[in-house]
């Protein structure tokens, strides 16, 4: 498969009378977008706003972040199986509004939406303080069942990203990245001596606001599945969850999965990258045994020499992470795990809910309970009182003056377990 990601560097964002990109400035016609989204009758109201890096703006509660793109050549558009009809993703030419992001916000569905600060202390902890954000604040009609509420907001965000992405259709990109990888047979013939590496990507698949989707299929229903890396970076996998804002893999981060991109960088040079195995994290013990056995088996069948395993969430999925590690290590396959830690406010607690001695190589993406103090914002998009109920916040953590303390738990992308961000933890 060959995929070209053609990046149009976005330097600013504004609302205006048209939706277009000129000289790196993205203009969005809010009214047109709102009308488009309100075609879904489950949506009562939509508010559009913008947030730029450096502005003293706080966005809360954040559900998802999506990168606006448009496929100009090749099969499939948008998010196949979800916003558009089912097509094979992973090939063709895609124009990317690089540096822009659609952020969905709104009425709280559950406890684990998050916060994005565009300046100051908070900005350090989220990668989305550096993107030009189009914030879509969605109010659903009253009385929606929680599962429907989530779906409505999810789809609205994706549609918004597609709509905005269209603005890039006829624009010349600033840089073009080519991702090309043939079949295993072809690649192994080209690089017979390079070690074979597989990326096991664990996805939280545990119910309302804890789900993921591949080609529109809820990952609770799948067996561990082999994907060509191009598929994920071309929109085949989207986020349906808010599993602790800190390590939720936003749709944006699926589209730009850092493990995939960093492994791809090494393909043909130091490794033979065989692809991605999507592994659901389930809520029953039997389910866990099934997915862990199956994942390990796939790695063995592929002939992997090394595997990077990333987790999504913490607590019960720590068990899956370590079970997969144990099975692989016992089969002679070298693993590196990427996970965050729950070490408490003082950092003194045991970091994981489970343990296994085979996990000798682990990358830590930080302590989710690390407390940060965020200064008062000049502007809040959404509702900052939501912090009291968000995971990572607590009653009384929002001060009268608008400043707030919260754990990294509540900050979008802070302890990303796909290693998207730069946090780590050191033993002191």
């Amino acid at each position, binding site marked *: 498969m060959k995929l070209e990601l053609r990046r149009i560097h976005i330097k600013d964002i504004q609302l205006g009378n048209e939706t277009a990109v000129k000289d790196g400035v993205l203009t969005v016609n809010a009214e047109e977008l709102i009308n488009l989204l309100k075609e879904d009758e489950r949506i009562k109201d939509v508010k559009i706003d913008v947030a730029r890096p450096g502005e003293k703006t706080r966005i809360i509660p954040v559900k998802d972040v999506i990168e606006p793109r448009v496929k100009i050549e090749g099969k499939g558009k948008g998010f196949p199986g979800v916003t558009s009809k089912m097509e094979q993703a992973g090939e063709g030419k895609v124009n990317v509004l690089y540096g822009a992001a659609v952020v969905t916000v709104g009425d709280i569905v*559950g*406890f*684990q939406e998050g916060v994005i600060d565009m300046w100051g202390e908070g900005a350090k902890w989220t990668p989305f303080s550096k993107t030009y954000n189009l914030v879509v604040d969605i109010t659903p009609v009253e009385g929606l069942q*929680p*599962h429907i509420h989530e779906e409505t907001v999810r789809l609205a965000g994706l549609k918004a990203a597609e709509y905005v992405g269209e603005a890039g259709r006829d624009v010349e990109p600033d840089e073009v990245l080519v991702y090309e990888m043939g079949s295993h047979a072809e690649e192994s013939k080209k690089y017979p001596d390079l*070690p074979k590496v597989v990326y096991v990507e664990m996805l939280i698949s545990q*119910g*309302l*606001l804890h789900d993921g989707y591949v080609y529109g299929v809820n990952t609770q229903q799948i067996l561990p599945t082999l994907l060509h890396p191009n598929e994920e970076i071309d929109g085949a996998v989207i986020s349906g969850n808010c*599993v*602790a804002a800190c390590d939720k893999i936003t749709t944006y981060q699926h589209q730009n999965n*850092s*493990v995939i991109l*960093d492994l791809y*960088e*090494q393909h043909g040079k130091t490794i033979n990258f065989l692809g991605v195995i999507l592994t659901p994290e389930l809520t029953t013990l039997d389910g866990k045994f099934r997915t862990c056995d199956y994942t390990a088996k796939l790695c063995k069948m592929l002939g992997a*020499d090394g595997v990077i395993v990333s987790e999504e*969430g913490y*607590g*019960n999925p720590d068990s899956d992470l370590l079970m997969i590690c144990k099975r692989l290590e016992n089969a002679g396959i070298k693993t*590196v795990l*990427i*996970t965050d*830690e729950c*070490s*408490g*406010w003082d*950092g*003194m*607690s*045991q*970091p*994981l809910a489970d*343990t296994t*001695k085979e996990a*000798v*190589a*682990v*990358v*830590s993406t930080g302590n989710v309970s*690390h407390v940060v103090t965020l200064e008062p914002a000049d502007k809040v998009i959404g509702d900052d009182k939501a912090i*009291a*109920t*968000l*995971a*990572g916040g607590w*009653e009384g953590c929002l001060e009268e003056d608008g400043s707030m303390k919260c*754990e990294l*738990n509540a900050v979008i992308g802070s302890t990303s*377990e*796909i*290693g*998207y961000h*730069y*946090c*780590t*933890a*050191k*033993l*002191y």
Partner: protein
Amino acid sequence: MTRKGGEKMKFKVLYYVNQFFGQVGGEDKAGMAPEFKEEAVGPAMGFNGLLQGEGEVIGTIICGDNFFNENKEEALEFIMNIIKEKQPDIVVAGPAFNAGRYGMACAGVAKAVVDELNIPVVSGMYEENPGVEACKSKAIVVKTADSAAGMREALPVMANITKKLVKGEELGLPEEEGYIPQGKRLTVFAEKRGSQRAVEMLLARLNGGEFKTELPMPEFDKVDPAPAIKDLSKATIALVTSGGIVPNGNPDRIQSASAQKWGKYDVSQRDALTGEYYTIHGGYDPVYANEIPDRVVPLDVLKEFEKEGVIGKVYDYFYTTTGTGTSVANATKFGTEIGKELKEAGVDGVILTST
């Protein structure tokens, strides 16, 4: 932590040593009660020199190792009184190398000083000294050799850390500064993103190169099983949960993750939880628990067992907190507090449900 930064005054160090390093005697004097000398004695002298005029040892407490370990309260009373009187900026104890009793004495002093007076403490011990586990999270314990032959190396490291702590300077990594890790996981920024570090770590492993894990695996301690209930039909059984089941409105505002508290609710008049309880736990799909909270805390069936005489009684209260993201330290604290109440109430057995 008090600071003396910016002022020309020397900071004050109070030094603690045992009978041997205090030059009183050996094993024969291990039973000596604590004494205070208004000068630097033994290693405190060398230590004083290393402070290079920035600080000074204002006195040395000498105490027998046996006396301390066998009369802890009395020893600490004396020691703490001296410290409160002399008001040092920092207390230095040892180094104890591998001497177990000496290490435990230093640890005892360290804990009391840090907890009660909020004055920092620096010590030095060999890694395996039992005093390390006892106080490493409270004091900064420098890593030393296993015998007094390591005195010359240990003192400068201790002096250096002492100066930094008094000045309020942040300490670097344990391996850089020379102390035994306190067990604290500090979140910092790395130069490279996590995925990049993972790729490099994997390449190192595949090529047989060296690598260092960023997260050493935790070890969990075990508890002996408690004796079984002899007669269930007379037993009082209590329910506890980490599933975050609370009364409507969450009156005690228990957090949805990383719980900082637990709640206790009277269920003596209820036959089931359904109707007035729901979940605030942010780590699982709440729909089923909200419908029938007994799916997480089986009060309904337990009450039926009580009616049927299978058990003696359902305890009047059930205890709840949120398990997701809740640190082991907090969970341990909650367990200890809840356990105490249950013990005092004479509860015979506990069912704890998790999600």
